């Protein structure tokens, strides 16, 4: 079918609507405001609702309420706005509710800047909220993938009753690329017998809460959730292995920097350096086993990120000191070029010889 030229932000919004998401709550912030704009235009046409809340805190709590009533719902923001949502996200996790959250990252900390960044990796994968909690984190690296991973996010969120965070960045959100919406695959929305909604007294009431005052109750609640996380780790890890199996140097990179790194890998191969790219598509769960496997054959790893070195620590944990793990990054809204990454590869390969 015909492709359309569309912004990453708009592709997410369109894919969400096609996934059966009927509710969007948000608050404007650069570089993701096109989502709210698109939702405001399209949601009324599909019988849905787009609401600009008075703040990010209000928006995430509206998501909390809508999700508890059993509908597909999403919110989106950019780095500082995501920080504001963190309390609500923790409550949603504590209640085992599904929802989709998009972070179109910009530079931080604080108000930072508005140009692309990946400096919320720690926040996304370690602590987007208090308590023993994890999110499911997806990292698209093209506009087509922005759309497909949005569709996937709704399926995963419903399947495991957990929030799914899509971790994009300003470049992916703002750029236009061709997207084939007819090629997307969707997961139908399951029955939600746990939802709190009107039932005219015909069933036992459902209670959704994250409050457990007795330590033993809270502990068993967390242990149950941990079983779910284990299932997720065992079944849902996704990555792209690009020429890693015979590679001496494996680059690990996600999102926009994975594309830049892939070009560098191709250039390195032309120069006779065996480079490969391991691109995590799920950042949480992280492709730990695949990286450990590759640490048997590769001589060195290089984590390429738009921050001061965050994912590199997960790579080190996965590789378990079997091989050296290097880091290369830019931050504050600057991007590296593929030539910059190639230079790093050449430098590391020199050290290997």
């Amino acid at each position, binding site marked *: 079918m015909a*492709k359309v*030229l569309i912004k990453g932000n708009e592709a997410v919004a369109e894919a969400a609507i096609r996934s059966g998401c009927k509710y969007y709550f948000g608050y404007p912030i*650069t*570089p993701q405001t096109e989502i709210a704009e698109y939702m405001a235009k399209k949601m009324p046409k599909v019988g849905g609702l787009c609401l600009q809340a008075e703040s990010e805190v209000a928006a995430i709590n509206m998501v909390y309420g809508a999700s508890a009533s059993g509908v597909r719902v999403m919110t989106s923001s950019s780095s500082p706005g995501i920080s504001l949502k963190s309390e609500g996200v923790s409550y949603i996790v504590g209640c085992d509710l599904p929802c989709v959250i998009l972070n179109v990252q910009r530079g931080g900390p604080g108000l930072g800047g*508005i140009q692309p960044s990946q400096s919320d990796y720690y926040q996304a994968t370690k602590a987007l909220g208090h308590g023993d909690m994890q999110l499911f984190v997806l990292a698209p690296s093209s506009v087509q993938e922005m759309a497909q991973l949005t569709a996937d996010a709704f399926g995963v969120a419903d399947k495991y009753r957990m929030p799914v965070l899509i971790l994009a960045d*300003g*470049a992916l959100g*703002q*750029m*236009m*690329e*061709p997207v084939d919406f007819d090629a997307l695959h969707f997961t139908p929305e399951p029955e939600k017998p746990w939802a709190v909604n009107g039932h005219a007294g015909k069933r036992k009431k459902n209670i959704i809460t994250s409050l457990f005052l007795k330590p033993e109750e809270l502990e068993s609640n967390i242990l149950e959730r941990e079983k779910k996380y284990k299932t997720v780790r065992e079944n849902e890890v996704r990555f792209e292995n690009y020429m890693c199996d015979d590679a001496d140097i494996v680059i690990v990179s996600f999102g*926009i920097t994975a*594309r*830049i790194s*892939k*070009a*560098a890998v191709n250039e390195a191969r032309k120069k006779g350096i065996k480079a490969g790219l391991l691109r995590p598509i799920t950042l949480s769960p992280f492709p730990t086993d695949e990286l450990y496997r590759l640490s048997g054959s590769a001589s060195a790893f290089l984590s390429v990120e738009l921050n001061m070195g965050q994912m590199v620590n997960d790579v080190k944990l996965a590789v378990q000191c079997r091989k050296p793990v290097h880091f290369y990054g830019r931050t504050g809204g600057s*991007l590296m*070029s*593929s030539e910059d990454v190639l230079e790093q590869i050449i430098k590391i390969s020199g050290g290997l010889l």
Partner: protein
Amino acid sequence: MTNKMILAGFGGQGILFLGKKLASAGMENDLNVTWLPSYGPEQRGGTCNCSVILSDTDISSPIIGSPDTLVAFNIQSYEKFMPRITPGGVLFADSTLIDKRPERTDISAYFIPATQIANDLGYPKLVNVVMLGYLIKKTAVFERDYMRSYLTDSLPESKAALREANGKAFDAGYGYEG
């Protein structure tokens, strides 16, 4: 083939639109394309640019360090981006608003008084389309007939006057001898 293009000028000169037309024409012709605007506190009359990449291979980054093609619509853009053009690259510039000429000899430079031509035609908002006509003539990035009809056909039939205006502006740019 990869053509990295930066189009730059004032907000309101139709720069993002021109970039989108080139990118979507590339998509129609089965090329990989990316379009990235400068974004932020932009305003009419402020600076504005977009990066368009057309390629028959995967595009690694939508961000362009050194453009193969620069289309400059004001002096600020000319001064900012002209030194960054890849050796062997091409410069297009609106000579109504840019009175400088590059000292570089390693690029091809094409000047057209696009603003003047658009004003003379009575379509002051179609500076970008005049430039598009000229760009197509000098680079053949797309076929003339294809690009002209792609441009006019994208306007609804109910807006016949706009179709005609765009066609005329395109022809004026294409027909400019310089």
